[in-house]
């Protein structure tokens, strides 16, 4: 691997901070989509704190992972941390799914699955048309690959050679009712997007080094949209929630809340 041009420890620390925002927000609020947000915290840390420039665009397709996005926006200094205290409350700028009309830094109102990649096609196509150099990043879940709209967009992006479009699948292998493999994943996402004409790479979605190196090499091939399949663990960072489908949506009781906060402390030491 080439000499690193970034500070991996800094990105790990930011990823930890994002996890801290996710966990403390859910503990304080009493409920929230913790598992899916924890799954993509490292990816968001690298994107926001290491990769994306001012003009780049980001769409969180799986909008229920918004706590990770809110956390990244706090760490980036776009919004104040105190905004998380209003999570899911009436009139809050940080509702259960992100709203572009309510919070600066949210590029698209998402929540309904399978919308992000098609929206990304619009942004990427507009950039090509206007000769603009920004990249469009779309973070998808693996469960949402079941939505047919993604495959309309996958074909279109390849057809139009949208190499300024970078999609990431946060592949934690779990969806609400079980594993993706047992529900609707007959073949790998690598094979599927590859056959649609995308350039695909697979990374460890919790290694900031791998994520950074891979994202910074996009587009992987001129004239092709890029896909990064990030292998992740749902609930990453909370021992009892890791790889556990029951923590997709988490309503912590007192015992779990205490345990989570204690684990946070241990995690913080680990990423120093």
């Amino acid at each position, binding site marked *: 691997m080439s000499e690193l041009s970034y500070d991996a420890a800094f990105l790990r620390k930011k990823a930890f901070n994002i996890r801290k925002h996710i966990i403390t927000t859910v503990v304080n609020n009493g409920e929230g989509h913790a598992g899916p947000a924890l799954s993509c915290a490292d990816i968001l840390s690298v994107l926001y704190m290491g990769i994306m420039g001012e003009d780049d665009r980001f769409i969180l397709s799986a909008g229920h992972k918004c706590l990770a996005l809110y956390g990244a926006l706090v760490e980036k200094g776009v919004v104040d941390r105190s905004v998380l205290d209003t999570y899911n409350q009436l009139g809050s700028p940080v509702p259960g799914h992100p709203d572009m009309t309510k919070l600066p830094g949210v590029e698209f*109102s998402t929540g309904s699955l399978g919308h992000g990649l098609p929206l990304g096609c*619009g942004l990427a196509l507009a950039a090509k048309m206007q000769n603009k150099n920004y990249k469009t990043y779309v973070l998808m879940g693996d469960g949402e690959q079941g939505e047919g*709209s993604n495959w309309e967009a996958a074909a*279109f992006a390849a057809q139009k050679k949208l190499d300024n479009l970078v999609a990431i699948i946060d592949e934690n292998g779990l969806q609400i009712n079980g594993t993706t493999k047992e529900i609707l994943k007959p073949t790998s996402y690598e094979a599927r997007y590859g056959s649609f004409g995308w350039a695909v790479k697979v990374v460890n979605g919790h290694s900031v080094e791998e994520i950074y190196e891979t994202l910074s090499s996009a587009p992987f091939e001129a004239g092709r949209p890029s896909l990064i399949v990030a292998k992740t663990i749902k609930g990453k960072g909370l021992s009892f929630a890791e790889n556990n489908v029951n923590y997709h949506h988490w309503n912590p009781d007192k015992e779990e809340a205490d345990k989570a906060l204690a684990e946070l402390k241990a995690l913080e030491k680990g990423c120093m």
Partner: protein
Amino acid sequence: MTKVATREAYGQALAEIGEEIKEIVVLDADLSGSTKTAIFAKKYPERFFNMGIAEQNLMSTAAGFATCGKIPFASTFAIFATGRAFEQVRNSICYPQLNVKIAATHAGLTVGEDGATHQSIEDLAIMRALPNMTVINPADGVEAKKAVKAAALHKGPVYLRFGRMAVETIFDEDYDFQIGKGEILKEGTDVAIIATGIMVGEALKAAKLLEHDGVNAMVVNIHTLKPIDEEIILKAAECGAIVTAEEHTIIGGLGSAVAEVLAEKKPTPMRKVGIKDQFGQSGKPDELLKLYNLTAEDIVKAAKEMK
């Protein structure tokens, strides 16, 4: 009298205003010959995108364009624009209030031979139910052209409904079209016929037939179903009886919109001429309009029922 399909007027209008409004981009789902966006595509190939037979991606890509300072017109048949891609229209266009124009053609029974699967008879109801959506259903080629321009200049999501069949021209070129404003096409005192889209022509014919029978009918054109012109509906209600006429199901369209206004503000006897909660079928447009009771004679009959 000249006959022009509103979809034809749409295609021509797009190509005309594309000259002055450079932000316009047009997206179509492989139907540009039918939706008439091909006229624009020929003139401005770099601003036209055939998205393929992929309507969900059509709507979302249009939404993406709207956040990049473009004014996207997304076109396909009404059945696919409002049915197949409904949730993209709802969540990715209306909810974030993006400046997307959904220009749907082949609405209503007058699609004709293609039959029920392609005859969108519920699109106005579906689009009217969406917050932030403006819903426009032009009556003739002149009104369609003016509506296209007004929609392009209006900030926010707009649904434009166009038909396949050529219809008689009603309006003069100097007609002043304003979104949200209905117009009285004929004054009257005994009954008011409130019509939209291709039924406006039938309403004018019905008024003439009624005149022979000594009934003085007012005719009101409602091109904008949402926001609806309450003032003109209340004025029409002063006739004491109202007939609505639309090439659409009587559930959730113009008849419902008028009834919603009257029920709260001025309860008035009314009849709804429209499709009576059933699907269409294959046939010639004129045969279908007769079979489904969407003619001037049906409007006359409905008016007389209240006398």
